[in-house]
């Protein structure tokens, strides 16, 4: 007997092992479950330390017993292969199960059971959980910033129209298909700008003018992210091409530009854009703070996008350039039809990464006095009537950002699948 065959079953007593093993595992999970959900300690007769470690030991022994090779039960084999391959994996599996069980009750109680949402004042929040009343009362501010309440329909309509117009691409018409790229790259952003300029900003057609300083909250997050994403991509693309250009002037300018913007922190760029930049402009020249911020972020992110795209350009085999050239294509035709479609497809994950970072960087615009959703939270938490609810605010913002970013990441993954062709 060269291998210690401790407690290993054979064909005859397989079922016995299975029952004992499952029972021990069940007891272990039940012990943690009761302790966590109902504060019942079924092992209270044992010393504290033993009671703490007991479920783990029971579980490991249980999993050890049911770790039967080729038991003939497909589900059990699958389980053993994936999460119960050896003692170490069994311990990890148990610990994860325990952590999940242990963390559910406190989260549930904070988020739902002990939370308050009724009432209009701080005093309504009596439970020990979250005070969603705070979010409820401040929701308008978190979404629209300081935008006047009676004018908020203008933001709603603009965003509704923009979302509706974004789905034009789904119209199945062959004649329009040709213009879709043109629509999304040029026409859509122009429509967006016009809508935002005339409807949200106002000042024409009898609409009251609302200065950009009053814009804020989630709607400002969307506006800043939207325009920055749209602008930084083409700029980044040209920078990437410029960095690989055969013309030294173009190349050095691109390299200089990229290295400059990559080398400075975004917060200083924003600060400069609002404080330093106007000093260099003629006195009668006015550029809105929001526009300056959008330009600053776009240029900043364009440098990152450029490097991501350059990675894709370099990943293409030289033969693709040769083939395109040998067919008589010039620089632009070669890049538009052969090189960029392939390179951009390769860098979708990298671009998505940069875009997610961009969206999550938008809160930094507080340094120039623009308050998007996190800025509004910071403002609201210092309101004397509502002190002490920073936690709820940040959790709320985290959830919102997570939803936005997860949607973007899902979308980029779908794009990857859509444009996947076998090489």
């Amino acid at each position: 007997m060269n291998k210690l065959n401790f407690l290993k079953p054979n064909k005859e007593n397989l079922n016995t092992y299975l029952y004992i093993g499952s029972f021990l595992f069940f007891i272990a999970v039940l012990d943690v479950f009761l302790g966590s959900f109902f504060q019942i300690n079924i092992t209270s007769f044992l010393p504290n330390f033993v009671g703490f470690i007991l479920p783990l030991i029971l579980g490991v022994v249980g999993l050890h017993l049911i770790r039967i090779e080729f038991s003939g039960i497909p589900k059990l084999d699958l389980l053993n292969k994936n999460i119960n391959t050896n003692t170490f994996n069994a311990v990890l599996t148990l610990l994860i199960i325990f952590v999940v069980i242990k963390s559910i009750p406190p989260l549930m109680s904070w988020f739902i059971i002990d939370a308050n949402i009724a009432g209009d004042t701080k005093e309504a929040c009596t439970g020990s959980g979250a005070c969603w009343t705070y979010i409820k009362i401040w929701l308008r501010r978190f979404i629209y910033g300081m935008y006047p309440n009676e004018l908020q329909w203008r933001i709603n309509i603009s965003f509704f129209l923009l979302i509706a117009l974004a789905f034009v691409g789904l119209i199945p018409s062959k004649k329009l298909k040709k213009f879709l790229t043109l629509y999304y790259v040029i026409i859509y952003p122009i429509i967006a700008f016009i809508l935002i300029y005339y409807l949200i900003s106002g000042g024409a057609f009898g609409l009251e003018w609302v200065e950009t300083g009053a814009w804020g909250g989630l709607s400002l997050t969307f506006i800043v992210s939207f325009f920055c994403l749209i602008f930084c991509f083409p700029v980044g693309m040209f920078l990437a091409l410029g960095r690989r250009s055969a013309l030294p002037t173009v190349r050095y300018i691109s390299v200089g530009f990229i290295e400059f913007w990559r080398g400075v922190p975004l917060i200083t760029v924003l600060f400069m854009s609002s404080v330093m930049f106007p000093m260099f402009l003629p006195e009668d020249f006015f550029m809105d703070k929001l526009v300056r911020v959008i330009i600053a972020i776009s240029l900043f992110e364009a440098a990152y996008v450029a490097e991501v795209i350059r990675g894709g350009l370099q990943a293409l085999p030289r033969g693709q350039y040769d083939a395109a050239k040998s067919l008589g294509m010039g620089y632009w035709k070669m890049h538009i039809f052969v090189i960029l479609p392939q390179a951009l497809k390769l860098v979708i994950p990298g671009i998505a990464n940069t875009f997610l970072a961009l969206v999550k960087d938008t809160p930094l615009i507080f340094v120039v006095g623009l308050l998007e959703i996190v800025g509004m939270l910071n403002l609201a938490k210092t309101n004397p009537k509502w002190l002490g609810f920073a936690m709820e605010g940040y959790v709320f913002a985290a959830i919102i950002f997570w939803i936005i970013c997860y949607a973007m990441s899902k979308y980029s993954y779908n794009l990857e699948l859509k444009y996947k062709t076998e090489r």
Partner: protein
Amino acid sequence: MSNAIIKINDVNKWFGDFQVLKNINLEVQPKQKIVVCGPSGSGKSTLIRCINRLEEHQEGNIIVDGNELTEDTKDIEKIRAEVGMVFQQFNLFPHLSILDNCTLAPIWVKKMPKKDAEELAMKQLKQVQIDDQAQKFPGQLSGGQQQRCAIARALCMQPKIMLFDEPTSALDPEMIKEVLDAMVNLAKQGMTMIVVTHEMGFAKEVADEVIFMDEGMIVEKANTKDFFANPKSDRTKLFLSQIL
């Protein structure tokens, strides 16, 4: 011999300090088929890449169809459009279907209407017998089929000259024949061809002239019969004895 379609006079080329082409002189008549052979690193690929200026030569001059290739050549694209090229690694565009691979350049470079371009592409694909694969993507085809598509793609530009850069070297032995058949077929139609290859059977069947290159020089240049029957230089004899 003034009506030569390609004239190469005293061409020298260096990669850094290394001289890849040494005093190359060559004239190609319309409809002539030339096979270039030689050991690897002898400069044969570089030579034909110079003919459509995928590589630049430093000395001497190359005249293609009456246009000299220099740094100032503004309409190099026009010359390239006249010279088709087939590569060792096929170099199809993986993001486009076989049909789109063939129509891309005619539509955007020659400004051919889409319908005409597709008709022409289907005709060329039929010539190389892969018209039934037109809607597939390059990745779904075998190496031989991809290479035949590459030939069809080059032919769709209706070139005057076709350059082949070791078109069968990256293929499985079984697929070599189908590609060579397509090339023989093309030769019979009277295309001007310069083929870098080690397929001596193809050379014997098709070539008017065979050029043997070694260390950047043209060692021997003779019509096909003489080249194989009584090679002059010892280097050629050695090469032929090893390859045949």
